[in-house]
Every structure is written in structure tokens, then in C-alpha cells.
């Protein structure tokens, strides 16, 4: 059973200013599935389209972002939701926060600066379930954050009184008030120190282990993926380059881009020279034809320049989009 299945998703930014129109092909033909009870990672460099992908699957599509084709279908224990068709009202009432919650990039600033933290909890619970008994609500909220290892007094603090790490953990506590089926965490630990990052990621892992739901973890930091996710995809220039269980990605990467990414990671205790790829990630307003990685690829072939490689399954649960690999070649 799948929780989410995304098929052939194409989402572009279309802007026009003073007669100059620009199209940024941020998500260009992406298909993948999410299953219950897993931590799925999305990795990629800046402006590879990962944030756009998150926007689309969380139903947060606003001008100038436009979905051109594809489908995003959820199945929450039999409750089917087509993210691209659902009405704003139904989305708000039945899906948001109850089924899908979100830990945002820059979560440090998601809390209203002029209200106490408890008020944000109150707003969320009141909107989605209603509060009849204020005392009971307070008790439940306290129990909830204590369960997540946060001290009770954060509730009565204003956001600016909390440290960055604490605010991030509050954001996670907010995301888990209703035990949603999917928690989307977009760069949840960027800008946090390693020790705090470790604490926050532990918290996410613990919550997932407790409630057996699905966590979609988006981060550019490969080392985080290595330690947290079960399965992951590597995005490059708006497309999936490779998707596999995390161990395979790190131990047996297939796509030349993935290989390079893994090999260039420095490690404590390893001083051998590591090299970078030449060139730069393409501009998505004007991407190269064929495989978008071909200008930087050490194994580039003629067909790479013209033919877009399909994402093919080469092993069990291991898909790669590269002309070096064909469905039956491995």
C-alpha cells in the first residue's frame, strides 16, 4: 500500500515582468512513491527543485508556481486525496495538519513573534478539533511536549526567548499534535549547530518510531541522510537522478552524479584528496538538453546530449536515470 504516489509531475515557475517572461523548470517529470512507516530522504543542491517538489505535494501551490502535468495522489488509510484537484476548503479542514504536517525550512521564524508559544498550539487545535475544555487542552499539550522531551515552560515563553534549537523542537512538537500520516521536514536542521542538530534529528527519529508514520526529510546535507533516512532520492536540476535505500546510495551509488557527491564528502580520519565536479549546476530557466547532468558528467556519451534518460529500476528498490544503465543491464 502506498501513502503517496506522485506520477510524472511537472511544475514550473512562470513569471513575467516588463515584458520579459521567464520559465523555471523547477520540477520536471518526477515520479515516486512514499510508503507508511518510513523515513524518506530528498537530497539535492540548492535550486535543484526539492523545495518546489515539497510545495506541490503539500498542496501549497501559489502563483507563480504552476503544475503543468502529473498527479499527486494520497491514500490516508482509505481516504483518497488528489492533491491537484482537492478544494481549498477540504484541504484545510481534512488534510492539513491532520494528515500532513510540515516542519518548514527556517522553522526558527515560524512562530508568531508577538504571541506566546501556547497560543500557536491553541490556534491549531481550535481550528482543527475545537477546544471545549481549556484545562484539558492545556493538560494534553503539556503531556504532548513532555513526551517529546521538552520542558513545560516553553509554552509560556515568547519565541524570542527560546534558542534556535528549542524553537525548532517546538515546531516539531506543533507538527505532531494530531499524529499525522506524513510529516514533511524541509531542511529542519540547516543553520543549527551539530550538537543541536543531532538532538533535533533524534527527536524526529523517535517520533517516527513511536507513531509509525512517514517522514519526508529534505536536506542538502548527505551526512544527515546517511544517519537518518531509510530510503532516499537524489535530485539534480529538477529531476530524480537516483532513488534507492540509503545504504545502497552510500555504498553502491550508480549515477555518476551520486558517485561524485558521495566521494567528495570529507570525513574525519580521512585525508586523501577529494575533488569536486567541474562546472556548475544548470540554470533551470535554460537547462541543457538531454540528461541535464551531461555537461559535467565524466562518462558523457552522445545520446546523453539529446535523449532524456528514463528513471529505470535496475535492482530491487533501486532506480537510476542514466544512459549507462538499462532496465536489464544489471
Amino acid at each position, binding site marked *: 500500500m502506498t501513502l503517496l504516489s506522485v506520477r510524472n509531475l511537472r511544475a514550473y515557475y512562470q513569471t513575467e515582468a516588463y515584458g520579459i517572461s521567464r520559465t523555471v523548470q523547477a520540477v520536471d517529470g518526477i515520479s515516486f512513491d512514499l510508503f507508511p512507516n518510513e523515513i524518506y530522504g530528498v537530497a539535492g543542491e540548492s535550486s535543484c527543485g526539492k523545495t518546489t517538489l515539497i510545495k506541490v505535494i503539500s498542496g501549497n501551490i501559489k502563483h507563480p508556481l504552476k503544475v503543468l502535468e502529473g498527479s499527486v495522489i494520497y491514500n490516508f488509510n482509505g481516504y483518497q486525496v488528489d492533491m491537484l484537484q482537492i478544494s481549498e476548503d477540504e484541504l484545510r479542514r481534512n488534510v492539513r495538519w491532520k494528515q500532513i*504536517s*510540515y516542519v*518548514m525550512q*527556517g522553522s526558527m521564524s*515560524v512562530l508568531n*513573534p508577538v504571541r506566546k508559544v501556547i497560543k500557536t498550539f491553541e490556534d491549531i487545535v481550535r481550528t*482543527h478539533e475545537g477546544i471545549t475544555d481549556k484545562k484539558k487542552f492545556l493538560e494534553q499539550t503539556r503531556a504532548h511536549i513532555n513526551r517529546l522531551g521538552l520542558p513545560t515552560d516553553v509554552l509560556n515563553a*515568547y519565541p524570542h*526567548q527560546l534558542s534556535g534549537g528549542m524553537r525548532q523542537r517546538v515546531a516539531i512538537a506543533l507538527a505532531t499534535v494530531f499524529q499525522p500520516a506524513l510529516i514533511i521536514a524541509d531542511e529542519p536542521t540547516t543553520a543549527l549547530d551539530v550538537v543541536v542538530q543531532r538532538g533535533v534529528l533524534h527527536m524526529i527519529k523517535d517520533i517516527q518510531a513511536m507513531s509509525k508514520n512517514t517522514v519526508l526529510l529534505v536536506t542538502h546535507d548527505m551526512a544527515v541522510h546517511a544517519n537518518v533516512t531509510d530510503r532516499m532520492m537524489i535530485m539534480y536540476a529538477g529531476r530524480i537522478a537516483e532513488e534507492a535505500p540509503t545504504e545502497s546510495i552510500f555504498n553502491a551509488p550508480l549515477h555518476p552524479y551520486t558517485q561524485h557527491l558521495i566521494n567528495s564528502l570529507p570525513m574525519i580520519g580521512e585525508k586523501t584528496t577529494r575533488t569536486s565536479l567541474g562546472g556548475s549546476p544548470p540554470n533551470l530557466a535554460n537547462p541543457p538538453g538531454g540528461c541535464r547532468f551531461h555537461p559535467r558528467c565524466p562518462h558523457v556519451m552522445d545520446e546523453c546530449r539529446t535523449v532524456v534518460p528514463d528513471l529505470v529500476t535496475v535492482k530491487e528498490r533501486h532506480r537510476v536515470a542514466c544512459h549507462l544503465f538499462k532496465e536489464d543491464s544489471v
Partner: protein
Amino acid sequence: MRKFVLRYLIPRIIQYLTLIFVGITLTYIIPRLAPTNPVEAQVSMMIARGSSLDPDAIEAMRAALTELYGLSGSPVEQYFAFWSRLFRGDLGPSLGNFPTPVSEMIGQALPYTLRLLIPALIISWIFGNFFGALSSYYPENKALNVVEVLGQVVRSIPYYIVAIVLLVVFSYFIPIFPFSGAYPIGTRPDWSSLDFILTYLEHSVLPAATLILVGFGGWFVGMKSLTSNIISEDYVVYAEIVGLKKRNILVQYIMRTAMLPQLTALAMSLGTVFSGALIMEVVFGYPGVGSLAIRAVYSNDYSMIMGITIYSIIGVATAVFLIDLLYPLFDPRVRYQ
């Protein structure tokens, strides 16, 4: 609390005193920069006007003027004398209505100005901010777009013109409101009579409407540009993703934070708003400080103009100070450092 006093209160008090100090010093310096000897100019102007004052009165006036301008002694002495008179609340006699003290006349006119200004200011601030926020949160709404255009129109035009347009339209072409004054000529203010209060209110409609309209436009436009930034703040985007109701987001997340800079803006704008009220009074012949000022101009009543200037500076500075004091009530970031 001690921290609050040290870090917030004391700097504000210093600021308040600086404001008054610089303002008053300015009014002290300005007359001294004038190329002519103001005393003789005044006296000769009075005589030229053929005032039927006897020589003794002219001498008294000359003495009063010399003291008023503080022209005896060295500049430093003059300056201290100037301040010491201010502390005694002595602004000298009015030259137009010699020898009624200036402070007494201002004291009579000021309530009219304040009764008009304060409610108009509050109403325009509240409504302007409310609709400004609304219009940036619902950019598609037609009615709000119309309001926005109106707001921009009145905002860009000087007070005086708005007042005149209202006056011409509503008391000349469509005479539904009285032409000028705060009550019919010949009536004596009688605050115990309901009839008087009603005519008073009727006379105040147009002046108040001018103030509210112009103020509304300003706050509307300011709030709109402010909120359009706040809307893209993380915590607002978050509130939307969370699925909160729009009304909840608008009030608790957008307006509440936007209100804070607008409160500061309110304090900053008081001087301008006060000036606007003076002009408006002139148009409507409303018996407040503005009318007093214009009469003073026409009758060459220098001490009155000086007095009004000083009063305005102290009044506005005090109002700004009070708003500053209120600010921490609304912003927890100031309250808990």
C-alpha cells in the same frame, strides 16, 4: 522591571527632553536670525496700522516686546531668561488682544482642536489600518480596491484642498452642512444644552470628515505596504500551511504584528497631523488653535504665534512620549528582553 526602566524608559525620557529642548531652542533661534529688529518692526507696524494706542501703551508694548523676544542682556542671558519664563508658563500678553495673556487664549481654543483631533486620529488610525491589512490580504476584492484608489487619492492631496472640496460640495452645492464655525454665530457655548451640543456636532462633521479621510488614506496605504511584507513572513506562511482560518491569520498573525510599526508611525506622524488640523480649522473657520493662529497672522500678533508654536511643540512631544510608553504593552519583545 529595573532593566525595563534602564533600557527602555530612561532612553525615552532623554529623547523626550531632547525633543523639547531642540524644538524650543529652534523657536528661540529663529527670530534672532531675522534680518530686522523685530521689536521696532512690530511697533512701527502697529503704529502704521493707526492703532489708537496712546504713547504710554506703545511704550508698555515696546517693553513687553523686548522682554518677549528676550532681547535684553547677552545671548546666553537671553537664552536662560527665555527658558525661565517658559518654566513659569509665561508666554507674554497677546498683541492682538492686548493685554490678555497668550496662554489664556490658547487654553480656550485648544479644547476645540483636541476634541476634533483626537477622535479623528483614533478613528482614522483604526479604520485605515484595518482596511489596509484587509486589502493586502484579499488583493482580489473589488470593493477594497476601490477603497485603495480613494485612499491613494486623498493621501496625495494636501489637507487644505480636501477640506475645500468637502466644503464646496457639502455646504455650497449640496448645503447639508453648515458653512463655518463650531456653532452658529451669536450663540454662546452652553455645554448643558442638548441643542447646543447637537449643532456643535453638526458643525464638526465636515472638519472631522476631512481629518478622518486624509488620515484614513495615509494609514491605509502605509498598512498595505507593511502587511504585504508581513504576509510573506515565515510565520504567516506557516499559519496558512497549518490550515488556520483566514480570519484568525489576519487578526492574530498579520494585524497584530503590523500594528507595532504603525504605532511608531502614529507617534512620528503626530506633528504632521497636528499641522493638518490647524489648516483644516482655517478652512472651516473652526474656533481652535488653527483659527487662533491665522487671526494672529492677520493681526501681527507675534507673541501669539510664538505661544502657539511652543505649545504645539510641547504638546506633540508629550503625545509622542505617551505613545512610546504604551508601546511595550503591545510588544512582548520589548517587555521581556
